[in-house]
């Protein structure tokens, strides 16, 4: 019987519910028979706006729900003041509750209907039946809500894995990484002696082999820890009784990628390398594989830092992009990756400056400043120059005379940086601009005017100049300047309020109905992940940071500091850091994909190109931005 004829034998309403379910995860991956089972055993329930759907007082959860229409919001009482706040939102096609149902306990969060809402629910027995028979359904339920993040990360990683290509070290044969002559012993050796042998050789594992040198088991320091902690036996137990049997083995011609995937999949830290007769010839550990990537980073930074010609620096930019791919492939989070890009960018900027000083030293002590995203250490591959000079005026010279010496130098540096891929700043926020090549005193005056006269133009500039950092030269002059600027802002409530007002003008791209609001300027139906997605976080966090004397410019670090200072609730700070990082991750993956296609980099994406999961995460992240802006509105009574 074909699927369609089977389908037409089902009642219309069953078919309609199956069609609805099929549009959403995990149902989209489930067999028709299981979908039909769901549809035929479901109940449709109605909840008016504000009705309680599930409450912690209801006892262990008995039903599994899918939102058919409307929304459910989770409510939690805040520890601080007992006020309730929304912790999550569940919209059409999404399921709840997972953790409580699997854990057979009451829900910890009050679930309330937001707007008139219909849910399709199944009773516990139907849930158990589907859970036991449908793999996609079980996987989805077990991984729970937190797995959404895993799934996004996984997708980012697999995407990056695919683009690594042959240039990467991970497809070289395993034998090159394997430690020859691994530490081995026979199964009758007491644990105490085996551990002593590991200690002597400073290794974390020992392979237990039989008399044909076939690996029969493995024992690691982790096993030792478990053995001691759980009192599994005395230390003179023969190791054969406590080892992990049948250790994971690969042949020497398998590649490192295979080994890495095997380790990631099974959470093994060690893999035995064997020959064709299954005899042990070596051992490879997680650390052996992944240290390669660190070497790459360190090597690359060193190569950039010692390059003797501009053209070498220009050619190394490609390696930076490749490294980013590799980092993403190894599950580095977007915060780490942007920091690495910034680190490498800093090294490049420094090297360009050093090469120019060698060639043509202006003879003036100066600090090279960077502003904006570079100042915040939040650069991605798409970046333009925002820089300036803070100089010390040598005795007997006027500031104007110093400037005349420094400006031609700065101009060359700006141009050479452009050749390295740092686009020239359209707004001329560059060190070669006489207005941004200033002494400490001049900068202080400049900031004083900037803060006192809060013109609209100044507010636009605030996102650039109030996020600054020294990349080259002595740090002290900048620290002294920053100190004065922060004090000035802390004392100026009006400026703070204007900054806050400015920070909430850019709303996260969600409509009242939780749909995406498209960018007004980009291509049709696109979102600007930078201006609409990240900027609301960056700008709101900046206001709190400046008002509370947080000196760092990095948004994630600012949030961290604000949590430590008690300005942000820790849970809120975590949620905002996570949301910000996820938008950044989606943006970076889009950049890598554009690079692969040879398209110019842009921050616009069409949310329809994302899978439903990413769309949902993006929506939730934008909602967190709305919450952050609400906090700003309350704090500054906007």
């Amino acid at each position, binding site marked *: 019987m074909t699927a369609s004829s089977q389908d037409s034998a089902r*009642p*219309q*309403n*069953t*078919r*309609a*519910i199956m*069609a609805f379910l099929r549009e959403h995860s995990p149902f989209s991956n489930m067999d028709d028979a299981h979908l039909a089972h769901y*549809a*035929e*055993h*479901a*109940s*449709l*329930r*109605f*909840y*008016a706006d504000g*009705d309680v759907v599930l409450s912690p007082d209801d006892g262990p959860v008995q039903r599994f729900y899918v939102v058919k*229409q409307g929304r459910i919001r989770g409510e939690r009482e805040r520890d601080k003041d007992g006020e309730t706040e929304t912790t999550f939102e569940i919209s059409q096609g999404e399921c709840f509750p997972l953790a409580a149902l699997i854990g057979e306990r009451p829900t910890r969060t009050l679930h309330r209907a937001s707007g*008139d809402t*219909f849910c399709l*629910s199944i009773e516990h027995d139907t849930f158990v039946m589907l859970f036991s028979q449908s793999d996609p359904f079980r996987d989805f339920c077990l991984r729970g809500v937190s797995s959404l993040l895993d799934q996004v990360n996984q997708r980012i990683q697999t995407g990056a894995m695919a683009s690594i290509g042959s240039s990467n070290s991970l497809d070289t044969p395993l034998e090159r990484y394997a430690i020859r002559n691994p530490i081995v012993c026979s199964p009758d050796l007491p644990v105490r002696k085996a551990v002593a042998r590991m200690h002597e050789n400073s290794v974390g594992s020992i392979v237990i082999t039989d008399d044909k040198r076939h690996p029969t088991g493995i024992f690691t320091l982790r096993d030792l820890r478990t053995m001691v902690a759980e009192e599994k036996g005395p230390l003179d137990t023969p190791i054969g009784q406590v080892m992990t049997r049948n250790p994971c083995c690969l042949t020497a011609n398998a590649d490192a990628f295979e080994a890495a995937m095997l380790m990631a999949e099974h959470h093994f830290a060690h893999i035995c390398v064997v020959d064709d007769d299954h005899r042990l010839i070596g051992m490879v550990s997680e650390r052996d594989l992944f240290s390669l990537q660190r070497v790459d980073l360190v090597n690359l930074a060193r190569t950039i830092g010692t390059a003797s010609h501009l053209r070498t620096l220009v050619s190394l930019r490609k390696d930076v992009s490749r490294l980013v791919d590799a980092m993403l492939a190894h599950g580095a989070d977007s915060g780490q990756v942007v920091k690495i890009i910034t680190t490498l960018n800093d090294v490049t900027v420094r090297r360009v400056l050093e090469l120019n000083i060698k060639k043509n030293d202006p003879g003036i002590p100066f600090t090279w400043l960077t502003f904006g995203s570079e100042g915040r250490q939040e650069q991605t591959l798409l970046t333009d120059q925002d820089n300036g000079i803070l100089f010390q005026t040598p005795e007997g010279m006027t500031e104007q005379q110093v400037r005349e010496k420094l400006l031609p130098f700065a101009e060359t540096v700006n141009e050479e940086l452009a050749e390295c891929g740092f686009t020239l700043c359209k707004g001329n926020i560059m060190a070669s601009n006489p207005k941004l090549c200033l002494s400490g005193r001049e900068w202080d005056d400049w900031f004083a005017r900037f803060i006192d006269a809060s013109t609209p133009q100044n507010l636009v500039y605030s996102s650039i100049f109030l996020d600054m950092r020294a990349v080259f030269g002595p740090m002290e002059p900048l620290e002294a300047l920053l100190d004065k600027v922060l004090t000035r802002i802390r004392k100026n409530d009006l400026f703070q309020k204007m900054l806050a007002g400015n920070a909430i003008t850019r709303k996260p791209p969600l409509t009242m109905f939780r749909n995406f609001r498209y960018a007004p300027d980009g291509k049709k139906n696109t979102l600007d992940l930078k201006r609409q997605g990240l900027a609301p976080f960056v700008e709101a966090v900046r206001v709190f940071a400046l008002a509370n004397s947080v000196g760092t410019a990095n948004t994630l670090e600012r949030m961290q500091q604000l949590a430590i200072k008690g300005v942000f609730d820790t849970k809120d700070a975590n949620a905002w850091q996570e949301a910000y990082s996820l938008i950044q991750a989606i943006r970076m993956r889009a950049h890598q994909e554009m690079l692969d296609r040879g398209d110019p980099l842009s921050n616009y994406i069409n949310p329809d190109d994302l899978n439903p999961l990413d769309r949902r995460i993006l929506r939730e992240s934008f909602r967190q931005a709305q919450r952050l802006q609400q906090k700003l509105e309350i704090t500054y009574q906007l």
Partner: protein
Amino acid sequence: MLEQIKDWIERRKAGSTGGHDREHLPTPKTAGDQRLSDCRLIVLDLETTGLNPAKDNVIAIGAVAIRHNAIDLSDQFDLILRRPELDISETVLIHGIGPEALTQGHETEDALLHLLEWMNGDPILAYHSAFDQKFLEKALKQTLGYTQPHTWLDVAEMLPAYYPNSKTGGKGLDNWADFFDLEVSARHHAAADAMVTAELTLAVINKAQKNGVVSLRDFNDKLKYYRQLKNIHRQG
């Protein structure tokens, strides 16, 4: 209950007769003290060959059941009747049931017997229920000689009673479905229309319970009261 229908369909396909107990058909229940949240309510929609009960006939029956304030999808009814003799030319474009479907449908007598058993005498709700009531009562009387009156409740009357001043832009099922943002999977398919009617009924029951309506009698009385009010307004 769905399993029963499946069994019954299988038996019909296999050619055996219905095996209905004609002497003991269910007796309709009245709107008494049964709690609104506990009793079973039938929400029904018919597709017919036309609008005139005197000459037109039922060709499809779709129904769902509400119990414990929820639509129980394991308890539904969705059948096209076998009536090859009927002229459906006037309405085929509305319900999409063509002559071919009517020859393959279920034998009328058997289907109606099964409907009676499935409904089990429970109160029947429908949108503009007078229409469905006339058609169904005529069909039951002509085909089975069954004349016991069911309790009928009109969903079209409940909605403005419990959601007064709603800007629906009209009194039709589509207007109310739009107002609640409901999607009808297949308009003018009896079962899909019954489903959306039932969804609207859930919204009504939710509101009624918040207004202190507990028993089916209360519920029915409120509707009567509303009808009187409306008549007074009309006369005044």
